[in-house]
């Protein structure tokens, strides 16, 4: 090959680089390892994490069964190692599954259109806020304190340089749902978006209808956020929301220490062109067969550049596929039954304790630890091989005596009984 090129050695191909730019020593990295050594390295790290614990953590990432079929499907090289489906003729596998995914998200959320996924729920929420601001032309955003605290932090980072003043409104200390009066007070004619999460960070089903009414009265859009996708199997779709932004990790995406996950944005037909992220549309090929292709690309960065609806390039296609397989395997009845099992487990556990808030909840709830520090209680639980709930003090100083517990279909009665004993 070097003969063809006309170079004496491969090093010659770099001769034109200025000396000042070159690295004049080897990289200080150990030499390459064999397959077995690599597996060993990661197995050792996995052991360092310790296994064999029952966990009652939720708060934005959830422990759910992953149907075996999910990994079977996504491990196929055609799905795993393929590129973004810009060349429709040789990407119908990816495009078809994304089209199905978009459809199922519409069926679950009650919206008209859904995109092919965002990075995660937190960035989906930030993008939804920017979308609402574009649509209404009004930059002010109101967000409920009962929205996931890290999601609110992300929103703050994204809105900081875009003329989007951000303000929070509170939640009621008894119900744990949003404080409508506080929202009403803070809403004004300059507000473009109101953001509410349901079930909220405390696991409680929110007053979405009332919030939407208030928002719409003042010409703002209502953005509904969800972090626990399984709740979509049983909760009424809030069609009064203008934009839905959520996290799909519960649908067969491994918790994997925080990522990668997949978010989604769904909305009404009239807002399609303001929606960020890839979209797959139905088309025909030159033989008249139904086919799918990426469409409305003119919203995106590779065409509009600085005027794009977003800078996003990726969609979490492989993870959206995991979610799609999950939704297909569970199906109409399975997703409902799965949600009901979650409800059963969390309500069984709650029945042995006293939830701090009296709002209706799905699979998470907060409890107040009277006289005991959450950290000490959790240490006791660890000795019993149980990872307890999330101490809320790290995000809500007023709730420093409380923890957030989550029980899913994976939680076992014996572990819940042990947990309840220790906490009581």
């Amino acid at each position: 090959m070097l003969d063809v090129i006309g170079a004496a050695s491969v090093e010659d191909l770099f001769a034109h680089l200025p000396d000042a730019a070159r690295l004049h020593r080897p990289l200080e990295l150990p030499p390459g390892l064999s397959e077995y050594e690599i597996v060993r390295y990661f197995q050792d790290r996995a052991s360092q994490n310790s296994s064999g614990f029952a966990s009652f953590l939720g708060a934005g990432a959830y422990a759910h069964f992953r149907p075996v079929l999910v990994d079977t499907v996504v491990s196929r090289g055609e799905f795993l190692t393929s590129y973004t489906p810009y060349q429709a003729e040789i990407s119908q596998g990816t495009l078809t599954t994304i089209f199905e995914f978009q459809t199922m998200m519409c069926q679950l959320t009650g919206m008209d259109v859904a995109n092919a996924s965002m990075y995660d729920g937190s960035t989906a929420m930030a993008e939804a806020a920017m979308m609402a601001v574009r649509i209404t032309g009004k930059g002010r955003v109101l967000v409920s304190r009962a929205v996931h605290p890290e999601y609110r932090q992300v929103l703050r980072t994204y809105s900081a340089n875009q003329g989007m003043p951000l303000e929070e409104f509170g939640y009621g200390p008894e119900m744990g749902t949003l404080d409508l009066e506080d929202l009403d007070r803070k809403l004004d004619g300059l507000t473009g978006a109101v953001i509410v999460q349901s079930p909220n960070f405390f696991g409680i089903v929110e007053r979405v209808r009332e919030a939407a009414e208030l928002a719409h009265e003042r010409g703002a859009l209502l953005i509904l956020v969800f972090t626990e996708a399984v709740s979509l199997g049983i909760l009424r779709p809030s069609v009064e929301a203008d934009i839905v932004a959520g996290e799909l990790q519960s649908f067969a995406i491994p918790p994997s220490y925080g990522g990668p996950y997949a978010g989604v944005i769904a909305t009404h037909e009239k807002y399609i062109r303001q929606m960020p992220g890839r979209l797959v549309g139905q088309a025909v090929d030159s033989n008249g067969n139904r086919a799918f292709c990426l469409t409305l690309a003119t919203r995106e960065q590779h065409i509009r550049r600085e005027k794009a609806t977003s800078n996003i390039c990726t969609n979490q296609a492989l993870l959206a596929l995991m979610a799609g397989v999950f939704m297909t395997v569970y199906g109409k009845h399975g997703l409902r039954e799965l949600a009901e099992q979650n409800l059963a487990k969390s309500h069984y556990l709650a029945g042995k304790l006293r939830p701090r808030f009296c709002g209706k909840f799905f699979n998470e709830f907060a409890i107040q630890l009277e006289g005991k520090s959450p950290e000490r209680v959790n240490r006791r639980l660890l000795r019993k091989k149980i990872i307890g709930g999330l101490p809320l003090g790290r995000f809500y100083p007023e709730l420093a005596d409380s923890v957030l517990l989550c029980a899913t279909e994976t939680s076992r009665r014996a572990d819940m009984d042990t947990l309840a004993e220790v906490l009581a």
Partner: protein
Amino acid sequence: MYPDNLRYTKEHEWVRLDGDTAVIGITDHAQQELGDIVYVDLPKQGVAVEQGKSLGTVESVKAVSDIYAPLSGEVIEINPLLADAPEKLNEDPHGEAWLVKIRLRAPAEAEKLMSAAEYQTYIGAEK
């Protein structure tokens, strides 16, 4: 090729003057460059437009182009045809597929526009 009763801009828009109003569109040259047009984004009625500034966009599958206002004024009418049939812009850019009608704010601005002959020369030179 380019109707004499219209006036033209360097950004490939045309204008049909009518007293204190004007109808605005994009030229045949523009639609050719864009290819198959899939969507047109126009301002709402009552919106003020300013000469030289973007008043909307025209989209093909792979490109977006700004439409620059040839004259300043207020939008009084939008062509209802284009929402459902953007392809009309490829078929009849100088006639049926006009974009907006405006009430002029500074009619003297029209003096800067090109005649059909001047535009023809301009696009000939551009190549």
